[in-house]
């Protein structure tokens, strides 16, 4: 292995990248085309956001008292991030615990998750999934259209070639925790008390 030149190493990386790109192209069926933002892939940005969202959540005090061995970020359904999320959370700590990425296929598996990204593949069964999670302190995130209208908490949208997000404070409140005002002010749409309005901008 040591004899291998850097050239062969680089070609290996390129091969892996092509493989991932093909996989992403295959799994993400666009209504939303993948856009590049600031030289970064859309899902790179979303992964970074996902990794940081947990920092702007005021978690229930009950959870604080418990020693938090880890801070799991779960992905339900088809994973659009691939290794990006794993890289984004690598070495990160929230609430004193290391952030880890976990893939699940059933909403029932979400117990212990702090943040749950619901892939677009779950669009059809979303209502049931949200209903199952409605009284668990899990921050639900998705980039499927009309996510917050359907009861989700944070929905990623792309506006002006930028990844932005909308928040549903009712859902957050119902789940028993709160979002930092710092986060809310960045949201392009805030749904609260059944009403919704544009914020920040």
């Amino acid at each position, binding site marked *: 292995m040591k004899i291998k030149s850097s050239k062969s190493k680089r070609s290996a990386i390129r091969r892996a990248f092509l493989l991932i790109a093909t996989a992403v192209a295959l799994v993400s069926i666009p209504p939303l085309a993948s856009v590049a933002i*600031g030289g970064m892939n859309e899902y790179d940005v979303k992964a970074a956001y996902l990794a940081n969202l947990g*920092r702007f959540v005021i978690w229930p005090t009950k959870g604080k008292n418990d020693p938090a061995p880890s801070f799991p970020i779960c992905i339900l359904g088809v994973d659009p991030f691939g290794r990006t999320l794993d890289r984004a959370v690598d070495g990160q700590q929230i609430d004193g615990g290391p952030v880890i990425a976990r893939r699940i296929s059933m909403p029932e598996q979400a117990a212990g998750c702090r943040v749950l990204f619901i892939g677009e593949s779950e669009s059809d069964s979303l209502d049931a999934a949200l209903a199952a999670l409605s009284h668990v302190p899990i921050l639900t995130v998705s980039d499927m259209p009309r996510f917050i209208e359907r009861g989700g908490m944070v929905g990623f949208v792309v506006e002006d070639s930028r990844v*932005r*997000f909308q928040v549903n404070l009712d859902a957050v409140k119902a789940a028993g925790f709160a979002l930092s005002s710092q986060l809310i002010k960045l949201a392009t749409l805030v749904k609260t008390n059944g009403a919704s309005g544009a914020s920040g901008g």
Partner: protein
Amino acid sequence: MVNGRHMSIATRLTWINMLVTSAALLLACAGFWTYDYVTFRNGCIRSLSIQSQIVASNSASALLFDDPRSAENTLAALRVSTNIMGARIFTASGQPFAGYSRSHLQNSSLVYTVREPGAEQHWFKDGRLILSRKITFQGKFIGTAVICSDLSQINARLRAYMLICAIILLACLGAALLLSSFARGSIAAPIVKLAGTARKIARERDYTVRIEPVSATEEISDLLESFREMLVQIQARDEELLQAHNELEARVEERTAQLRSANQGLEAFSYSVSHDLRAPLRQISGFANLLTDDYSAQLDTGARRYLGLIQKGAANMGRLIDDLINLGRIGRQELMRKPTNLNELAEITLRDLRAEIEARAIDVRLAPLPLVECDPGLIKQVFANLLANAVKYTRYQERPVIEVGMVEQGGEPAIFVRDNGAGFDQKYEHKLFGVFQRLHRAEDFEGTGVGLATVRRIVENHGGRIWAKGETGKGAAFFFTLRPPARGQQNQPAMKGTIIQ
């Protein structure tokens, strides 16, 4: 005013007051200003630091979620601080993220640099205060906020301070001026009055002037009192001096009167004695002549010789008496001044001596003499005496020379008669002009011893003076003037006035 030497004490006091006041005020103002400047500057830094802290914590989420507009909204809140010219947020990698500036024009000129990404520091540049602060979120460095504030507030404060200082300074100078006018009253006024009095006394020499007492500080009243005492002493001394002077004058007058009467008595005595001596002398001389004429044949040789000696002695005595009478007459006689040609007088006198001059071939040199206002009869006697002496004392000289001329002696024209005869010892000069004072033996040079005394009296009666210069065996020179020397001998025109050219 500028030249301190000519300032009056009152002005000087005022100036000192003003200077001290201004110096103290300026120092105080400078101290206050420095303190205030430092305090205010630190306040500015603290205020900017707080604002940057707010900006930093409010823009953390914007940085994390890549939302420059939100960050710009946060920065726009700085608009309420009018001194903040602009602000910028940089990402952790140092890329510009969001910005704000008060004026779009200034935006381009503002240079926002992060000296050290992540460092928290402030610095002054181009009259601006720039503060940079790292933005952290949950202990993680995510960017840098830089705020730039202008110092116009500090400058405005400085201007206000200067204005206040100027106003206070003017007010204090006014107050100092007012107060120093009181000081003038209590300190300067008595001194000014003293100076005025001293000047008046110096000018008028009136030591009876007194300074009326004024209420003044101790030192000044001491000074005034000493001055007053000094004046009293000067006046007392003046009076003593005047009294002494008057006493002296009276005494001198008294003595002069005594002397004059004694002198007159002496002269009268001398005149009458001389006069009275003539009658018996004439008898002696007359009978001696009769004896010689009538009884010469009956007398032997020895008797005839004695008779000759008697006749000679009587003749000598007669001359002496004549001279003495003459001397006495000169003392009493009024001068008959008239313009006189001294050359003529000298020539007439020389004519009387012509026989001996020619016989001995005396070289007489007569220089031109001036025309002088004098008594010609008396001056002729002077020439007669001096020339006769000159002829007499050159008797043993092989080549006798007599010079008559005029010299200028220290601005004083003096007539002289000089010979190269027997001369005299200069140290006996004072004896020359005394009555019966003779420097030579009668056997060598006959004479009565009255001639030079007569000459001196005549010269002195004219107001002149006479002196002699001589050396034993080398001749003598007699100088005389006929007028008192003009005051300050350099006064030539006055001198010439006495000499009619």
